[in-house]
């Protein structure tokens, strides 16, 4: 179990850094999606099933779809945006800053010996099915709406693109 946690956490970090560093905005979006997907694996393994499903569908699914659609539909694709990015060389230092900040947080937490928060009494040991269909039916409904929405999004945005290409 621990191996999966470490692997997925590592993947998430790598994809995240890739997304930030990549010059092509399209690839960056894909990196983000992958990072998000690793996060959902991590969440599932840690027991937050619902959050995992949700993360997968919304963050790595739909948001990426829209990102990519937006980028590919814009009339001056890639070049301009990439040029903007290239101009900003300081972005190269960004991952270092992020990692440094993370380290600082960890050191702070260790030195101050902050109490780790207790998990609430509604435990995560319930059956996933019970949780999903019994307790969270409102969220299911929302999920249905999201999926519908995603379908329409794909239909609208990509159909338009096809028409544009013709």
């Amino acid at each position, binding site marked *: 179990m621990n191996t999966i946690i470490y692997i997925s956490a590592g993947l998430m970090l790598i994809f995240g850094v890739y997304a930030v560093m990549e010059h092509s905005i399209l690839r960056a979006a894909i990196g983000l999606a992958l990072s998000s997907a690793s996060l959902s694996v991590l969440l599932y393994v840690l027991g937050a099933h*619902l959050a995992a499903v*949700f993360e997968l569908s*919304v963050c790595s699914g*739909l*948001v990426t779809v*829209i*990102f990519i*659609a*937006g980028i590919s*539909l*814009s*009339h*001056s694709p890639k070049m301009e945006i990439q040029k903007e990015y290239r101009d900003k060389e300081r972005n190269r230092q960004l991952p270092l800053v992020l990692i440094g900040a993370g380290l600082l947080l960890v050191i702070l937490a260790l030195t101050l010996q*902050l*109490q*780790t*928060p*207790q*998990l*609430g*009494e*509604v*435990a995560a040991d319930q059956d996933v099915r*019970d949780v999903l*269909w*019994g*307790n*969270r*039916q*409102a*969220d*299911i*409904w*929302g*999920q*249905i*709406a*999201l999926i*519908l*929405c*995603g379908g*329409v*999004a794909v*239909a*609208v*945005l990509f159909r*338009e*693109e096809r028409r*544009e290409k013709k």
Partner: protein
Amino acid sequence: MTILSICAHGFVYCPILVVLIYNLFNHEFARKHFIWFAGAGATWQILTSAAGFFVLHQSGQNGYAFGALWDPGLPGSAYFELSGPRFLLLLIVGLVAFVSVLVAHHTVDFNRSSYTNLLMILVLGMNGMLLVTDLFSLYVFMEVTGLCCFIMIAMFRSRADLEGSFKYLILSELSSIFILTAVAFLMMKTGSLRYTDLAGLGSRISAGSGRLEDVLFYAALVLLISGFAIKTGVVPFHSWLPDAYQSADTAVSILLSGAVNKVAGVYGLIVVMELFGDVAPVGKSLAAVGIVSIIIGALLAVRQPHYKRVVAYSSVSQMGYILLALSTGTTLGLVAALAHIFSHTAFKSTLFTNAAALQEQAGTLELQDLGGLENQMPVTAFTSIIAFLSTAGIPPTAGFWSKILIILALWQAGSPVLAAVALIAGILSSAYLIRLQRTVFFGQTRPELAGVKEAHGSVLTAEILLTVITLGLGLLYPYILMLLHAGGIL
């Protein structure tokens, strides 16, 4: 099946049903007659929210809980609940959807089927936000709402659309991050996100304890407020709003300003106030954001070169009033906020409908290209004046009463200074409104606009409908005030 349960389930089922039925028809037919399907959905929403309110009021219950699929029963389950103030917002959703459909009949051409589908899902998303009793579910439906909006803004695939949509998307994601983090922090503290479990949490936590989870609780509040403030579009979280409103199609702008930023933003803040209003800084930060928003929004509106941008910044300013009313944390404050939400919906939708009319007839919304349209478009000019009067809070319009209520609420809550500032800032709003009215409608008619005609068909209908609502409410308000008085709120 009681009437109440039909109304209640309708809010959840009806939009999806409309989407399903609508897509059964062949494409051309659906494209041609979209107004009937979307209009029916919106009308249903309006009727059931009104009927539901009266039935619930008659029955004397506080709320009506129901499940989406089967009855709520399991402890800890997330279910839907109908209750008093939500009805007003449900009604607003229906009304705005209806007006948007009327306008879309003129402005939307290619994407009518997608527009209808997205509109219905958007309505479902907003209904969901209003009905759920769990912070996480609230977040889920907020995402639904947000997604629909991105697509609707981007749908018309012009560069401006995409830019506006992209900005909205990024800022919205920031807000999602904020809210999701906050939800996580709260979950850590309580283990449950139901409103009933969260309510009153603030009083059980002392600020000075220094324990991480307590600090995180306050951090969660900060994040919640910021997240919903982004969705509301108040200064300094407002930057996406003018771009999005300007670039979106007018039918979509109406949805955004009339319903989405109220349900996704203000309603979220209402929930925060209801749950954590006893934590003093919550109210104070809302008041601070509100007052800054009122002033800066108005100042920004004065110098905008585009009709829709002026109206968008005016939205920023008006949202400030609503937050100010909410910040009092009193019942009167809540009532005032809801009242202003309703007035704002009416008059802001009027202005956007007028924008649609101008776009259709005059072909532009750049202020420097407009002028002297009073004679060509008398109805539009008149409805515009009424909407301006309502925005500036001048009787006998609905805006006057709701602003009075806000000022009363502030006064009652012991912040006369805020009340005074709110009152004086009203002058600023008249400034940008007068400028807009003068440049667009008054003065010499530009020669190239000489052939412009009055708006017609459903746009004109929407203009008149909204103006009637604004004026009618303005005349009806004394009665509402009497009800409030009888209820001991005033």
